[in-house]
């Protein structure tokens, strides 16, 4: 038994005509409860796939609404379930009444993506098509639709596939050095591996719309988190995205590499970038990571300045004075740890958001503020870059971050570099197709002369 769900599957009203879809085991029966005929038609009286003029009622006082309905039998509809499609006038008042009436008779509004999920679970479509359909539905304007089309036409598969193939090449070379070290196989050392990996990282950055020069347009607006070590940036990132993206540790300076998260709010997406704490680098590894992060912050993205609100107001003022001049116009201050007893005066820094990642206080408001703010600052969504859906974006972005980490710690040893790269690759492969160790071996054999 599938519950009967319904949703409008054409642009929202007002519109001359809208399409209403019902789906579920008794979709026809539920729908017939709205049909005024005397005597009322029976479900079996409706011919599948034949459009039928009906009059619908939702309120005894209002005149019936004319509509055209098509009934789909189980197994023949798009989702594979029994379903009804109804074309009816797009007048908001009428629609509201009809939808409310449907709920009274036992149907419920579909949750986002529920039709697609049902189609997937019934084996009607595969995961990648399901995602493209979802992206088409979400696309807001012509340019965005074109970007999604490019995805469907394989542009994304091509770009991701080529990054994955390059990663696989480096992996194969490293693996050859491990499995065939006794034979004269040339395998890159850590320095060479870095040289080979940096361009792949740049490609991924480009795909994600990250900007190292500030000129390449991105698909998703971005906000940077900036602040002192241990100001609570990582916790804030996790609270905003609802995921454990950043490793949070009470010891200051835990984040050594940029971590990205995707904030999703009211159908909009904002990339949040958590940068390493602003402090003098100590080890070589840390300085390399900081350098990379500073490259990123030079772009003209809005910046969230994260401040530990349990500190002295004077100290915070001092920190504000030390922010780069060119940042002034694009900084939004956020005071963290407002659940602490010791917290700055409410009069201090009135434009700041006051939040607690621990209790969740102020987080919802901050999310909404950031979405609105980024939309303003970033202007129109730039649609010329690849448009990923949230899952794909998260996967590519995680791959990018793992790769970046692998480059930073390439000296730890070739077998560990391999693990980091495999980890990065795994995320890319989840977007397109999977490689097996057999692929790596095939590559090894095609490139190297082996045999002892």
């Amino acid at each position, binding site marked *: 038994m599938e519950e009967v769900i319904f949703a409008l599957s054409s642009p929202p009203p007002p519109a001359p005509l809208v399409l209403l879809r019902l789906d579920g085991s008794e979709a026809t029966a539920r729908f017939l409860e709205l049909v005024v005929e005397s005597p009322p038609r029976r479900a079996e009286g409706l011919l599948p796939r034949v459009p039928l003029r009906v009059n619908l009622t939702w309120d005894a006082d209002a005149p019936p609404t004319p509509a055209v309905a098509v009934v789909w039998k189980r197994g023949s509809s798009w989702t594979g379930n029994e379903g009804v499609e109804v074309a009816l006038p797009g007048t908001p008042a009428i629609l509201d009444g009809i939808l409310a009436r449907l709920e009274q008779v036992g149907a419920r509004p579909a949750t986002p993506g529920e039709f697609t999920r049902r189609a*997937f*679970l*019934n*084996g*009607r*479509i*595969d*995961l*990648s098509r399901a995602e493209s359909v979802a992206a088409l539905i979400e696309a807001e304007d012509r340019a965005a639709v074109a970007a999604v089309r490019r995805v469907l036409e394989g542009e994304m598969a091509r770009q991701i596939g080529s990054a994955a193939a390059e990663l696989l090449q480096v992996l194969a070379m490293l*693996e050859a*050095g*491990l*499995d*065939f*070290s*006794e*034979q*004269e196989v040339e395998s890159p050392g850590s320095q060479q591996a870095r040289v080979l990996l940096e361009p792949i990282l740049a490609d991924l950055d480009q795909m994600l719309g990250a900007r190292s020069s500030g000129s390449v347009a991105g698909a998703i607006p971005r906000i940077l988190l900036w602040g002192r070590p241990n100001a609570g940036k990582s916790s804030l990132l996790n609270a905003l995205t609802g995921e454990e993206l950043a490793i949070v540790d009470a010891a200051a300076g835990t984040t050594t590499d940029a971590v990205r998260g995707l904030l999703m709010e009211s159908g909009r997406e904002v990339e949040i970038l958590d940068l390493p704490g602003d402090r003098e680098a100590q080890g070589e590894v840390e300085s390399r990571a900081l350098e990379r992060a500073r490259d990123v912050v030079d772009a003209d993205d809005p910046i969230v300045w994260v401040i530990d609100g349990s500190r002295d107001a004077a100290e915070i003022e001092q920190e504000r004075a030390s922010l780069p001049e060119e940042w002034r116009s694009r900084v939004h201050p956020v005071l963290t740890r407002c659940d602490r007893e010791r917290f700055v005066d409410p009069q201090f820094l009135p434009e700041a958001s006051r939040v607690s990642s621990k209790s969740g206080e102020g987080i919802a408001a901050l999310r909404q503020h950031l979405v609105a703010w980024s939309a303003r600052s970033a202007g129109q969504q730039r649609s010329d870059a690849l448009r990923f859906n949230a899952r794909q974006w998260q996967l590519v972005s995680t791959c990018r971050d793992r790769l970046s980490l692998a480059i930073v710690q390439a*000296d*730890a*040893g*070739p*077998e*560990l570099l391999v*693990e980091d790269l*495999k*980890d990065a690759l795994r995320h890319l*492969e*989840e977007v397109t*197709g*999977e490689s*097996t*160790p*057999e*692929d*790596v*071996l095939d590559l090894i*054999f095609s490139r190297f*002369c*082996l*045999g*002892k």
Partner: protein
Amino acid sequence: MRDVDAEVIVVGGGHAGCEAALAAARLGRETILVTLSEDTIGALSCNPAIGGIGKGQLTREIDALGGVQAQVADVAGLHYRMLNTSKGEAVQSLRAQVDKDLYSKEMRRLISVQPHLRVVEGSVEDIHIVDGVAAGVQLEDGATVTSRKVILTNGTFLRAVMHIGEIQSEGGRIGEGTVRQLTGALGGLGLETGRLKTGTPPRLDGSSIDWSQLEVQRPDANPQGFSHWNQLPEREWMNCHTTRTDESVHDVIREYLHRSPIFSGQIEGVGPRYCPSIEDKVVRFPDRQGHVVHLEREGLQTPSIYVNGISTSLPAEAQEKLVARIPGLETARFLRHGYAVEYDFFPPHQIARTFECQALSGLYLAGQICGTSGYEEAAAQGFLAGVNAALDLANQPPLILGRDEAYIGVLADDLVRCDPREPYRMFTSRAEFRLMLRHDNADLRLAEKGEMLGLISQEQADRVRRDQQQITETVSRLHRERHGTRTLHEMMRIPGATWSGLIEAVPGVENWDLDVRLRDQVRVAVRYESYIERQQGEVERMRRQEQWSLPADLNYDTIPGLRNEARDWLNRLRPDTVASAQRIAGVSPSDISCLMVALRARGLEEELESH
């Protein structure tokens, strides 16, 4: 019960056959080993070495479970080297040059003193079947030996043809015979067969080689043996030597290429890419100016030198000509020419993880007839087949190792969904969890399993448990104790950190209760800790998918959405779990989603029917 001649018959006395027969007999089963010739039991047919990258791990795992390859190799070892020492512990492996004669003598000794084990000479040409179950074997002379389990480990001997240039002769090894009828007999049971090729290089007389021209490769100064349970005997270790081919050698090869059975089309079987013949190397990599050649002594009492790196099936005169152009070998005398051998095998997707044949209950296949290559791979399969045959006779659950538990598990799991185009060889890159599956912790991983089987004694297992306890306690102590601002654990994680460095820096550590031989293991455990923790998620995901079994009667043609390529592979290899299906190269993630959807639908229907 005693209406049969034996409970287990093992056919073949190579690496697989010896492990299978010894394991079954040690588990108390009356066992008969049938071999073409008693003298060739435990023979090293190709190179005089045990171990190597990825393979040394297999040998140590067999040892930890109670098999014999490691202890036999240690008796015969002449030159030990730990490979990949500059790379990291997870990819380090032990390799030993061994005395071939000592090796096979020791193997024959173990077999002759083993209770419940007898050897019979003969050629097995058919499987004796009673009520649809394997019930013995039929020999060439018509005699039947009956049993309840039959383990075939025929190596390269099924319809074997050797090639030296245009000259072809029957036989699986120089001077030995072949088994003609068995392939057809198994084919009659519905088993698919295939043909593979392998090769071996010439053997030279060591007294005719100019050793002064050659580069010396020294063994490790303080070698560590393969076996966990025995001290390596004191012995004078032997050096190895290397030389190189050059363009003048390659010219000879090109000149004779049209007479090479590989290139003339005379050989149809596919050879391994990782162990190519010298003519293969010259053709496929024309830019390489030279190839390294290792000269390996086959034993202390024989002048025979194995010329590693120039495996070939070129005509005899070409072999002599090309060898004479290799520095140091100008006047070398041939003891035997190199040759290629073609043989029948059974694609191993037809066996289960127990190595029992799906087509015939009671019949097990192990070793090269499953399309693998290598002494270590063969021994691992033979061991599992022998153990599982014995366990089944005792009505006990089979021994099946996971990919996260052992290289042996990776091997078995790869084989059951494998339709090899070339002989299968182990590599560390085949083991996705190789950071956990190290040569240094094979006993920690597997000795308790060996004890449960009854092949490892309680004293042996107790020692391993004590080691494990010391390691665990030391690692947690490293986490607890601090030196200045850092924990000792953090200090140990710094690249290049050593235990002696820690002792120097932190007073008191030298008094910790930790056996000196375990120090390295603690250091390695600390080094890989965070990576292994991260891999645990992958391990669990894999285990979940392994729980999700694919019904044997699943008809892939009726599953909507599968791509044709995936459908073909799934129908052919019939993976037993979703995890296994996922590892088939021709099956994509979206095929897997379709499969899971279909399984779910099927599950729902069955649920409805049962109500």
